[in-house]
Structure formats: C-alpha cells, structure tokens
C-alpha cells in the first residue's frame, strides 16, 4: 500500500512543480525582466551612480577643475591613474603654479573601486555611464582625460 501511496505522492509533487513552471509559461509576457540588449541601446539608461569609467568633465570654455594635486594617483590601488604635471605661470596671480599636462587613465587596470573620485577635493573627475569598452587593441584603453588645450578653471584651489 505504501508503495502506491509513494508513487502518488511523487506524481503529486512533480505536478505541483510543473504547476509553477506552467504558470510562468502561460504568463510569459508578464513579469519578464530580461532586457533586450543591444536592441534597447537608445532607451537604456544606467543608474546615476553607475561606475562605468572615470571621466573628466569640461565646461564650454574647455576648462576642467583638476589642479594636479595627485591625491587620486595616490589613492588608486592599481596605478590606473598617472598624472604628468608641470609648473606654469598662473595668468591671474602671476605666481608659479602646478598644472596638469596629461591626466592618463588606464581603463584596463581600473577595478572601479571609486577611491579616486571619493578623494578628489575639487570634483574634477567623476563616473561616466559608458560601459561598452571592447576594443581591438588594449592600448586604446589608455586615455588622456584632459582635452587638448584645456586649462584649469580660474578660482579652483585644492
């Protein structure tokens, strides 16, 4: 007797499980969370805090706020940031002042820990939303973040 009851119990549990999958099969349009990437590229918006890559925003006058204090370079655990700096004459005060020549960012070394952006005193760098970083040659992942001819926005001190 217990032999048959075991069989019936087994069939019952299997049917219960199939009930769950069957419910989803019939309601497959509802509650589907799959994103149709890359077809939804135009409408895809990442969250504000999403860590895609480090970028340096420039304003309309081609000015950034990086003073070259190198705090980000020290904070970076992997050496993803290299700042090549120089001393130049400041136009306003006429004194010798540190300024960045090149802000080199190695995306291929970056672990997106966010310590550089956390430590930046002038908010010169922030997170970009781009996450499509496939390239044919890894040297393309080394970027110079300050645009050519850009300079420090007047009045920014560290």
């Amino acid at each position: 007797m217990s032999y048959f009851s075991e069989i019936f119990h087994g069939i019952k549990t299997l049917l219960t499980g199939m009930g769950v999958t069957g419910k989803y099969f019939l309601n497959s349009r509802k509650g589907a969370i799959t994103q149709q990437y890359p077809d939804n590229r135009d409408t895809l918006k990442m969250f504000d805090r999403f860590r895609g890559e480090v970028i340096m925003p420039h304003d309309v006058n081609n000015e950034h706020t990086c003073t070259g204090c190198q705090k980000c370079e020290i904070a970076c655990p992997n050496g993803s940031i290299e700042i090549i700096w120089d001393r130049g004459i400041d136009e306003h005060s006429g004194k010798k002042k540190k300024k960045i020549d090149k802000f080199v960012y190695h995306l291929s070394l970056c672990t997106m820990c966010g310590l550089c952006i956390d430590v930046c005193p002038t908010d010169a760098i922030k997170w970009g939303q781009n996450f499509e970083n496939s390239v044919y040659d890894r040297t393309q992942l080394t970027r110079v973040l300050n645009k050519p001819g850009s300079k420090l926005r007047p009045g920014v001190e560290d």
Partner: protein
Amino acid sequence: MEDTTVKSNFKSEEYFINMGPQHPATHGVLRLLLTIDGEIIKKVEPDLGYIHRSIEKMCERDSYQQIVHLTDRMDYLSANINNEAVCLCVEKALEMEIPERVKVIRTIIGELTRISSHCLWWGVMGMDVGALTTFFYGFRDRELLNDIFEETCGARLTMNYNVPGGLMFDIHPNFVSRVKEFITHFKTKIPEYDRLLTDNVIFHKRTKGVGVLSREDAISFGASGPVGRGSGYSCDVRKYHPYSALSQVDFNEAIRTEGDTFARYSVRIQEMWESLSIVEQLIDNIPEGDFRIPTKAVIKLPKGEYFQRVETARGELGVYIISTGTKSPYRLKFRSPGFSNLSLLNHIAVGGKIGDLVATMATLDLVIPDIDR
C-alpha cells in the same frame, strides 16, 4: 569456488580522474582529484591555486582604504559583508564610534547580499542536481537585488560601498521603497521555490541521506555557516558576536540536525526568511545622522593585533590585522569560510557516487576565489 572465479574475471581496479578545473559543477576553477572504484568515490583531493591572486600579500602593500576593495574579489557573492569585516576591524582598532545610521544601512545591505547569494546558490543547486529551471528563477530574483545595489552603491557585484568610518555615500532616495517592493515580491517567491524544488520527490531522493556530516565532525573540521548549522552546530556569528545593528534585531538561527545535503539546503532556505525579517525590521526606521565619519587621509592603526569576525553567506569570515603603526598592515590574514568547508569534502563524499559528490558540493556552496584568495 565459483564465486572467486567470477570475481577474478571481473576484477575492479581503482583509478583516478580529474574533476575540474573547468568542470561546470565545481563553480569555478577548483580541481578535484578523484580516486574512484567504478562510480564509488574512494578519495577526494582538492587541488587549489588556480585563482590565487595573493590578496593577503597585496594587503601588506596597500593602505587601509585600499584593502577594502580587494575583499570584494574574495567571496564575490557576499562582497558587501567582506567589506564590512575589514571596515569593522579598522574601526575597532581606531576605537571609532560609528553612527547608528551607518550600522543599520550596513546590516540591511549585508542581509540583502546574503539573500542574493542564497538566490544564486539555490538556482545553481537545482541545476547541479539536474533542474535547469531553478537557475533562471534564482537569477530573476537576484536581478532585482542587483538593481538595488547598483542604484545605491554604483556596482552590482563588487560594490566597495563601505569605507573605514562609514559608507562611501548616503543611500539613494529610492532605496527604501525599492527594498520594500523587493520584500513583498520575494515573500511570494520563496514558497514558489519550495513548491518547485524543496518538495520535489526527485530532489529528495538526490539529497536526503547524502553527504552526512555529524556535529562532532563539523566542529573538528571548522565548518561554519549553513554547513555547520545543517549538522546541528549552532555557530551563527550574528547571534554570538553581534556586529553593526544585529544586536537590535530579533531573528532565529536556522538549525537542522540531520547533517545531510537536504538539511544544509533547508538551512539556507530558512536563512532567506530570517534575512528578510531582519531587513523588514530595520528598513522602516533607518535613523537620521551622518553616513560617514571623516578619517585622516592616511590611516595608521596603533601597534597591535586586531581581529574581527562576521557571518558571510558562507560562514564565518575572520579578519586578523597585525599592525606595526605604519600606513599598511604588517600582516593581514583572512579566515575564509570556504577553505574550512572544502576541507571536509573528502570526509563526507567518500563512499558515495560522483553524482552525490556534485550534490554535496553544491550545498557546501563553494566560491573558489574565497578559498584561494
């Protein structure tokens, strides 16, 4: 007389095969050297080192802020709890008073991480014993949690949200409503998990009485987390050494006494309920206050030795720092739960079949980067 001739004609011979390092059921790059007789396992020897990145050595080079992001890469499924462990240890050494708000947020995100880790484990556990559907269901619910983490922490997996002294930024305005949405959603999903897999008769046949670990063995092998609790060993660090806001909440330690694969499975399902209840108790009353206490740019711990233990999704994680007063630790040791849990695999898998080994390993819930570090 005839019997012996039969035996000599069908002489069995022990032989050994490699399982892994690329075997899909080893959840990463774990290589198992199996000595088997037919399909009966005689010996299991784990061979480690395929994903060793010398994180402990790198910690001796890094500053205390930088160490935190390395712990993301150990047990990546409970990344936030690992971060918390290092931060708590550093804060303990500096004797910092952490605001209540930080403690509560850390606990909420830690418990959500535990649920997300168990979701993934549940999906993979079903897949290991041959039920493909569970994988998609587990990942579906985990995806909602990942969105919550991404919105607040900025990353889905390697969050690096904790810093010594608090949190990197405050929670996102949507955080509370999203978590509440998740709680109501997930409360309907766990019974579904039960109907689909827990009550399934085939699953019972595959798991009950398989890979039995007694309480004494669990203690002597240093098992912790759901593996220990599945054998009736009460070892929840959250109960015995509460950290962050865990002393304020009321929850039960999930314990089963059978010690087999199904007991470990049930413990984890029960833990999902408990974690949900912890989050539910805390989410409505996150205290106001600072989310971060400013520390010095270069943190130097006083000379001495510091230890902090937390309960990750896999068991007890210990962080042991020896400081000589410089900006980086003299030595940093992680006591990872996965390593101890792997050590008992040979003990419980011997005598079983290869299929049972896969089911047993699934409930040990191994994360290989946590074992190798």
